[in-house]
């Protein structure tokens, strides 16, 4: 076929896979050297004038010799990082169905608000009279999160989900010690399906971990919990909705059993996005729950943090909340920075927590309002179920046809005859322009594939995703192994040799020896 200028509109039949280029680049996909290979020690992209001569007060502590840090001019730096950025998948570029991670849209308004000088350019130790607006924002967000969860108090300072878990478990440990049971209650119950952070957190502060099995239906039964409870049990750490994407429907009975045994109920709130405005953890008997502001309230994941993990607390745990916290006195807000004379268990971090994340989360909450947050949860759950029903004739669900919450879980039984693995399937998704779902988690489900679409996808986007996964599934079941075994074929890199990385760790650049 020719266009009206007589030029061919097709470039021929050759595959692009074996096209070699001089640079190793493939058009817009460019190879990029390390800054240590291109930068120079004498170069700098920041103009700073040498100060006038002065008498140093460094004494004998002055540094001698090279540091070993190359510099780049601004255009070189821009090009380096822009080229690198283009090797990353991102929410802004496509559906990012990572179960348990809640990769929802990150509104740019939130970025703009967090950069207002009145939030970004204030110091954590300024006189409190000069940061009344900041304290009010923290207080507003605290009250909002308490209202959404039906709890009594909140610790705002934890810096991530796992840090929030640590904070909640420390509050529980302090409460138990205050009852004089510190020496005897030292076991924490953790279901097998839990995030790895749960047992790691418990172990970090000296608890031993006892596993609780989930039933064949994917949820924990009160009987299983009762069987594991005893006078030595300090707490249970239960994720709800759980990591299989199911609501723990026996949660009230479990909470009652836990409380009757004198233990506390820690809820991992990683999946709070499914239930905003639908139910409140405080009404379900939860004593402590962290809220991942970077998941539910859309502070950007940033390639792996920073996050924020405030922890809501029940009345029983409230007195043990760590410093700092905001208090209202007359017509001003104050900051309590010392716990002496109170039951506060201590301090999780220097300063006041992740203010930058608080501003973003507040912008997200104000934008949605009570109505929008409820709608967001409903859309997230509806979208996950839509994906589930559109795929479950081809892919196998470990817990049958029951509705899921905001993520749809499949296992790898349906792949058994194909000789392909969950990993193969995931890597083939990359060639189709999708980030894979969470794979091999939860550990209790063989070859797990956990798909969380969030509320941010249009129906057109969901339909294309479903059609793509159906096409891949049919191809897998039809024996087209090469589409999977060699995948990804079109990404900036093929599969990586992860064993080599771990066996012969190269953790930084070192200057090559002269030839």
């Amino acid at each position, binding site marked *: 076929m020719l266009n009206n200028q007589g030029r061919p509109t097709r470039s021929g039949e050759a595959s692009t896979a074996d096209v070699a280029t001089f640079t190793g680049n493939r058009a817009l996909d460019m190879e990029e050297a390390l*800054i240590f290979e291109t930068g120079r020690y004498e170069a*700098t992209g920041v103009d700073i004038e040498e*100060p006038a001569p002065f*008498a140093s*007060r460094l004494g004998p502590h*002055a*540094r001698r010799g090279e*540091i070993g840090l*190359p510099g780049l001019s601004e255009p070189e730096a821009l090009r380096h990082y822009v080229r*690198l950025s283009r090797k*990353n998948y*991102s929410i*802004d570029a496509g559906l990012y169905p990572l179960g348990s991670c809640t990769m929802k849209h990150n509104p740019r308004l939130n970025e703009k608000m967090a950069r*207002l000088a009145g939030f970004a*350019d*204030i*110091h954590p130790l300024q*006189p409190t009279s000069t*940061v009344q*607006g900041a304290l009010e924002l923290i207080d507003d967000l605290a009250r*909002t999160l308490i*209202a959404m969860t039906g709890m009594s108090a909140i610790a705002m300072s934890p810096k*991530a989900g796992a840090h929030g878990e640590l904070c909640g478990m420390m509050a529980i*440990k302090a409460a138990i010690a205050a009852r004089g049971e510190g020496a005897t209650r030292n076991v924490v119950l953790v279901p097998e399906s839990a*995030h790895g*952070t749960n047992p*790691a957190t418990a*172990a970090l*502060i000296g608890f031993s971990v006892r596993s609780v099995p989930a039933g064949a239906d994917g949820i924990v039964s009160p009987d299983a919990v009762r069987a594991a409870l005893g006078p030595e049990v300090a707490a249970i750490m239960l994720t709800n909705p759980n990591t299989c994407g199911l*609501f723990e429907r026996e949660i009230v009975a479990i909470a009652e059993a836990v409380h009757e045994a004198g233990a506390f109920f820690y809820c991992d709130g990683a999946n709070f996005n499914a239930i905003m405005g*639908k139910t409140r953890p405080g*009404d379900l008997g939860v004593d402590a729950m962290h809220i991942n502001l970077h998941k539910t309230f859309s502070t950007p994941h*940033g*390639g*792996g943090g920073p996050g924020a993990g405030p922890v809501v607390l029940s009345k029983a745990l409230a007195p043990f909340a760590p410093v700092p916290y905001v208090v209202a006195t007359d017509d001003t807000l104050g900051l309590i920075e010392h716990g002496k004379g109170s039951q506060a268990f*201590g301090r999780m971090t*220097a*300063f*006041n927590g*992740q*203010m*930058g994340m608080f501003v973003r989360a507040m912008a997200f909450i*104000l*934008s949605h309002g*009570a109505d929008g947050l*409820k709608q967001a949860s409903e*859309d997230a759950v509806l979208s996950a*179920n*839509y994906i589930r029903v559109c795929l479950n004739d081809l892919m196998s669900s470990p817990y049958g046809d029951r509705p899921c919450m905001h993520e749809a879980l499949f296992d790898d039984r349906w792949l058994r005859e194909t000789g392909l693995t969950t990993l193969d399937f*995931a890597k083939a998704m990359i060639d189709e322009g999708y980030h894979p779902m969470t794979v091999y*988690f939860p550990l209790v489900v063989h070859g797990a594939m956990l798909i969380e679409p969030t509320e941010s996808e*249009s*129906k057109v986007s*969901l339909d294309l995703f479903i059609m793509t996964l159906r096409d891949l599934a049919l191809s897998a079941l039809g024996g087209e192994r090469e589409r999977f075994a060699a995948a*990804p074929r079109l*990404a900036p890199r*093929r599969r*990586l040799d992860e064993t*080599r990385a771990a066996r012969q760790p190269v*953790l930084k650049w070192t200057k090559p020896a002269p030839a």
Partner: protein
Amino acid sequence: MRYLPLDSTDRALMLARVGVAHVDELFADIPADKRLSALIDIPRAKSEIEVERALASLATRNVAAGSVPFFLGAGAYRHHVPASVDHLIQRSEFLTSYTPYQPEIAQGTSQVLFEFQTQVAALTGMEIANASMYDGSTACGEAVLMAHRLTRRKKAVLSGGLHPQYADVVATLANMASDEVNRLPPDILASEDIAAAIDDRTSCVVVQTPDFFGNLRDLAPIKAAAQAKGALLIAVFTEAASLGLVRSPGEMGADIVVGEGQSIGNALNFGGPYVGLFATQLKYVRQMPGRLAGETIDAEGKRSFVLTLSTREQHIRREKATSNICTNSGLCALAFSIHMSLLGQTGLQRLAKVNHANAVQLADRLAGLKGVSVVNECFFNEFTIRTPRAAGELIEALAKKGIIGGLPVSRLLPEAGLDDLIVVANTEMNSDADRAAYAAILAECL
């Protein structure tokens, strides 16, 4: 609602496909008496304009550091961040990506982390560094736990020059894990005899330089004393820019180095998010907490980067992990790395020199005021002054006159009897006019 793409037609079609009449049927597992029937008690959705107004009105009620002569540090420092840094970290591909768990489509983040680790190792003079921690204080807590694992001992000795809130974080963790902490009294003059506090049960000594009061400390004798007892030296810094001018902790023999990286590339943010730096020697890598990026090759032999040695981490090892940490401070580490790439050692050294020169000027100016003395012999960009009037009152009085004059030590150490001390920082952001204004108004307030 502008962030929700589904409309009522879409929802109806999807509900029909799922086979339910109403979305509430999908929430049937929530016990009926625990389902909310009314909306939660917060306001309804707001437009972008309304949200901007609401938040801007809160922001304007804060005194932004850039709007006044500003001399506060004490663990968080106001430095200039080149415009390109904030532009680059807002690239969608950096801002809205997850941890690089699928490395084939995350080489951008993976390579950045590898470069970051190399920069941190060079800066601290250590063999390896991880991909960052939440902040300096939590990195400090993790370093102590790591030393306990390495030495199989459970007692930490904390220098009296350690930032009090860092010491609080360590003490809180220790209290919870039934570990021992010997927290030495505040050490204004860097004159404590830390060697005397190290015994056979000591796993580590934690020493900060420049310390909380601004003093520069020689860690080499402390390393020798620790080593003699089989204990490790953990070196701490809260001002990363100091490393452009002062000896690196690695050079002085540190076994583990932790610090706050906020100074490079990151704003004050009222205390967070920041970026914890964590470096050590290669032989200790298996006990190191946090993510690590490493070099490898792909199936075609091309150099690639990937998160590695994850068998230390919670998602594999669960309760046997080295830490419960599940994230790093990725975007802040990126900001650090970009700013550091722009600076290079040449820029960093000049930046550090300007900071030091400005601080010396200010120290001399303030020391000339009647009744004011500078307590430090050696310092970088921060020092402590003794004042004839209670420091807390002075700082309030200065604030009323539009100067943020530093940190009254009593705010963080209320019971130490150190009511006449102010920790004063001076960076490249302070002008001669700022310093003159500070000295003049401080003189008025004395």
